[in-house]
C-alpha cells in the first residue's frame, strides 16, 4: 500500500529564466485577467513574465464562474467595464476558432416572474439599447413558453438577449497563456509576490521563490489585488470577496432549457441564473455573499437548498434530476462597483483590480485597454499571428473519446480518456494540482464524483509525474 495524497500529487513547478533577467513587464496573477494581459503583452513584443503564487493558473476567482460570455446589455453604461465586456466579447469571437475554443450562442432570457419585475423590463431593454446591444426583443408569456416549454407558467414576460453565449471558462485562459508562452513569455508558478521595491531602473519583486525584475508591474492579483497594490506604496481600494455558490445538475437535465435564464435584477434580492454549461450540465446560481475571507469557498447546505428551491420554482422538471456538483466561487469585488483599473506612470505600475463579475468576458478587452494605457512601443512579436490550440473538453465540439487511439475511458461520467489525462500532466502548462487536472480534463467532475475513477486517475497521474521527472 502506497500513501498518495491527491493534494500532493504534482511537484512544485520551477521557472526557466535566469535570476538576473530583467523583464519589460511582470504580470502578477494568473487568473483569467492576468492570462489575457500576458498574452497581449507577449504578442505586442514586450518581454513578459507571468507570476503566480499557486502551482497552476486559475486558482483564484477564475476557477468557479457561470461561464457566460456577456454582451454587456446590463453593464453600467459608459464605464470601463461596459467597454471591456464588449471589446472582450468581440476579441473572443475573433480568436476562438484559431484556438479551438468552444462557443455556443444559446441567447438569454431575462425573465420577469411577477408584475413588479414585468414593469422593469422596459427599462432593462432601454438600458441594453443604450449600451449598444441592438439584438433585444420583448417576449410575451406565450412567446416564452414556445421557446422554453419547460419553464414555469409563472413566467410573465421576458427580454430575449440574442448575443449572450456560453464558453469554456478554463480552456480559454489556458489558451491565452499558451499563446503568451509561444511568443516567448515566461511563467513563474508557485512564486508568491511578497514585496518589492523600485531601484530607480526597475522593480525588484520579492517572491516565495527567486526574485523577479521588471520595468513595469501589472497587478492582476484578483482577490489579493489590494494587498499586492500596497507594494507600490499607496493603497487605493479594498477587496471585499463576494461568494457565489452553485448547484450543478446532471447531464440528464441538459435539454430542459435552450437559453440562459437570467433574473430581473432588483435592489433587495439577487435572483438566480439557470444555464447550460459547456460541459453538458445545468448550472444554478450564483449567490452573492460578501465575506472577509479571501479563501473560504465552503458551501452551505441551507444556501444550496435555497438555490434548488428557487430553481425548481422556475424550472419544475429540474426536480427529477440529480445534483452532480456543488461549489462556490469568490468574486474579487471591491469597495466600489466599478473596475479598479489605473496606471501610475511615476511608479511604473498598472492595477487591474476589482474585476468582479464579468472578468471572463472582459479579459481580452481589458488586456487591450491596459496595453493602450501602458503606451509603450515594442517590436511586435514575430509569432503574434501564429496559431496555438488547446484540446476541446466541451460538449460543443467532438471530444477525445470520439477519436480512436485514446487508450481507454478512465472517467466514465465525463467520458475522459487516458490520453487526455496523461497529456494534461505534461509540459510547462501541465496541471499543477488536482484542481488544474480537473479543469483541463473534467475527470472526476461527473455524477459519481470519483466513485469509479478517482483511484485510477491518481495512479495514472502518479506514473506520469514519475516518468517525466
Amino acid at each position, binding site marked *: *500500500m*502506497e*500513501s*498518495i*495524497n*491527491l*493534494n500532493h500529487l504534482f511537484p512544485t513547478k520551477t521557472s526557466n529564466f535566469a535570476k538576473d533577467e530583467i523583464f519589460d513587464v511582470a504580470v502578477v496573477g494568473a487568473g483569467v485577467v492576468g492570462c489575457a494581459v500576458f498574452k497581449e503583452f507577449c504578442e505586442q513584443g514586450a518581454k513578459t513574465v507571468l507570476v503566480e503564487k499557486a502551482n497552476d493558473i486559475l486558482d483564484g476567482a477564475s476557477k468557479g464562474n457561470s461561464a457566460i460570455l456577456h454582451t454587456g446589455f446590463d453593464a453600467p453604461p459608459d464605464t470601463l467595464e461596459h467597454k471591456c465586456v464588449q471589446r472582450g466579447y468581440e476579441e473572443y469571437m475573433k480568436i476562438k476558432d484559431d484556438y479551438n475554443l468552444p462557443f455556443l450562442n444559446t441567447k438569454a432570457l431575462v425573465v420577469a416572474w411577477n408584475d413588479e419585475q414585468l414593469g422593469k423590463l422596459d427599462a432593462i431593454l432601454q438600458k441594453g439599447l443604450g449600451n449598444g446591444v441592438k439584438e433585444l426583443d420583448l417576449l410575451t408569456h406565450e412567446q416564452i413558453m414556445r421557446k422554453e416549454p419547460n419553464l414555469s407558467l409563472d413566467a410573465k414576460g421576458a427580454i430575449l438577449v440574442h448575443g449572450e453565449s456560453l464558453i469554456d471558462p478554463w480552456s480559454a485562459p489556458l489558451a491565452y497563456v499558451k499563446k503568451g508562452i509561444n511568443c516567448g513569455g515566461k511563467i513563474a508558478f508557485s512564486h508568491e509576490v511578497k514585496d518589492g521595491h523600485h531601484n530607480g531602473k526597475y522593480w525588484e519583486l520579492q517572491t516565495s521563490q527567486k526574485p523577479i525584475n521588471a520595468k513595469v508591474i501589472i497587478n492582476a492579483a484578483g482577490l489579493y489585488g489590494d494587498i499586492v497594490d500596497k507594494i507600490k506604496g499607496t493603497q487605493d481600494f479594498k477587496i471585499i470577496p463576494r461568494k457565489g455558490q452553485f*448547484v*450543478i445538475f*446532471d*447531464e*440528464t437535465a441538459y435539454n430542459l432549457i435552450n437559453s440562459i435564464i437570467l433574473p430581473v435584477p432588483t435592489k433587495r434580492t439577487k435572483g438566480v441564473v439557470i444555464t447550460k454549461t459547456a460541459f453538458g450540465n445545468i448550472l444554478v446560481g450564483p449567490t452573492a455573499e460578501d465575506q472577509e475571507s479571501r*479563501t*473560504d*469557498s*465552503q*458551501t*452551505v*447546505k441551507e444556501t*444550496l*437548498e435555497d438555490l*434548488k428551491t428557487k430553481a425548481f420554482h422556475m424550472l419544475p422538471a429540474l426536480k*427529477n434530476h*440529480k*445534483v*452532480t*456538483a*456543488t*461549489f462556490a466561487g469568490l468574486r474579487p469585488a471591491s469597495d466600489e462597483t466599478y473596475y479598479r483599473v489605473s496606471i501610475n506612470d511615476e511608479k511604473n505600475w498598472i492595477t487591474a483590480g476589482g474585476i468582479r463579475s464579468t472578468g471572463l468576458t472582459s479579459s481580452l478587452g481589458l488586456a487591450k485597454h491596459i496595453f493602450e494605457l501602458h503606451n509603450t512601443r515594442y517590436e511586435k512579436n514575430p509569432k503574434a499571428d501564429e496559431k496555438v490550440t488547446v484540446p476541446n473538453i466541451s460538449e460543443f465540439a467532438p471530444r477525445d*473519446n*470520439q*477519436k*480512436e*487511439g*485514446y*487508450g*481507454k*475511458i478512465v472517467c*466514465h*461520467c465525463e*467520458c475522459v480518456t487516458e490520453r487526455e489525462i496523461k497529456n494534461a500532466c505534461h509540459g510547462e502548462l501541465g496541471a499543477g*494540482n*488536482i*484542481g488544474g487536472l480537473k479543469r483541463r480534463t473534467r475527470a*472526476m467532475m461527473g*455524477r*459519481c*464524483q*470519483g*466513485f*469509479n475513477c*478517482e*483511484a*485510477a486517475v*491518481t*495512479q495514472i497521474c502518479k506514473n506520469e509525474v514519475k516518468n517525466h521527472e
Partner: protein
Amino acid sequence: MNNIQIAIIGAGPAGLSAALELKKLGYDDLLVFDREDEAGGTPRHCGHLGFGMFEFKRVLSGPDYAKKLAKLAIDSGVNIKLKSTLTKVENGVLTFSTPEGIKQYKPTYTLFALGARETPRPDRLVSGTRSPNIITTGALQRFAYLQKIKPFERAVIVGSEIVSFSAIMSAKHAGIKIEAIIEEKDEIDSFCIIKYMVKYLLKIPVLTNTKLKNINGEDKKVTSVSVSTDEGEREIPCDGVIFTGQFTPESSIMQKSFDDFNFSNNSLYISQNFQAKDDGFFVAGNVLRGALAAFKCYFEGKKVAKNIHDFIRFKHQPELIKIEADENISWYYPSMIDLKSPTKQHLTALRLKRRAKGAIKVLLNGRMIYKKNIHAFPFMSINIPWKDIELKPKDEIKLEFVSS
C-alpha cells in the same frame, strides 16, 4: 452499423449471468459490452469476502467472484467487448465510444445491466470545504484493492447501511484509521448485529442520531468534520470523509434516451418480465433500483435471460399497466404489469426510505384493494401478492405507505 440479435450492456453479475444463461439456451448472436477493461462489474473491487455462497456454494472475495463469473462466461463462448462505453441510445441503435473509434450496433434485444453507484457528497448537499479526500466506499475500494493506494490516514464514515461495513474493511486493508461512523437516524441502517460487531469487535464508535454539519478545512484539505447531536456540536479530527450507501442506479443514459422514466426508482418502468415499454429493451440488476447483494443480481440475470428467451419464442404483444408509488417508497419492482405475459405476476417487492410502522396500501383506480400492516426497515424488502387481483387494461395502480 452492426445488426445483432442480443446486446447486454454491463458485465457485472447481472449481465454475465444473463449472458451465460442465454448462451446455454442456444443464443450465439450475442454480445456483452462493458466500459471497464475487465469484466466482472462492481465485485471486482469489493476485496473482502462475502460473495458466491448461493451461486457457487463457496465463500469468495469480490475479485475472485468476478474472475470466476468472467471466466465462466468466456469459457462458454460469450463474446465480451471491453472498453466499450455506451454513450447514446437512439431509434434502437446503440452508440459506443471505444479506443478503436465510435461503434454502432442495432440489436433486436437489449439488456441494460448497468449497476448502481453510491450517492456522493454533492447530491447530499453537505456544507463545507471541497477536497479530493471526500470520497465514497466504491472509490475507497478501488484505491485499496485495485490501485493499492492509501489516499488518507484517518477518516469518518458517513452512513450506516451494510455497505459501510465494506468501507470499514476496505479502510482496514488500506491502513486507514476510522474515527467514527456517523448516522443521522436514531438507529443504524442495517441489522443491529453489525453495530455491535463494529462497536465491540472493531472498537469503532457508531454515532447514531448524529448529523454531519460541516466538513472543515481549506485549500482542498480536510481537517475535521463538525457533527451535531442532541447534546450539541463537536468536531472529529480526520483527513478523509467516506460517504457510504444511498445507492442510485447508473441510469443517466436511460434517462437521457427514453421518454418514459420512472423517477421513483430512477430507472425505466419494467414489467414482471424485466421488459421495458420500448420494444426489445430489458433491464436487470442494480440499475433497476440501487444495491442488492450480488447473488440477487446474479439470479435476476438468469431470470431475465429466460424471459428474453420466452419473449423470442412466443412473441406476445405486451399489454402494460404502470404502477406508481408515493415518496415514502425508496424503490419497488416490477413497476409495470404485463397482462399478456406468460409469466404471471405474483409479487411486487418494495422498500421504504426509513424505518416505519404503518400500512402499505395498493390503490386500484383510486380504490384500496389491498392493505398490509408492516413494521419496515429500509434495508428489508416487503412483498405484495398480486395473485388474487383481476386487472384490466388502462387500470391505474398506486402503492402508498401510511404510517400509523
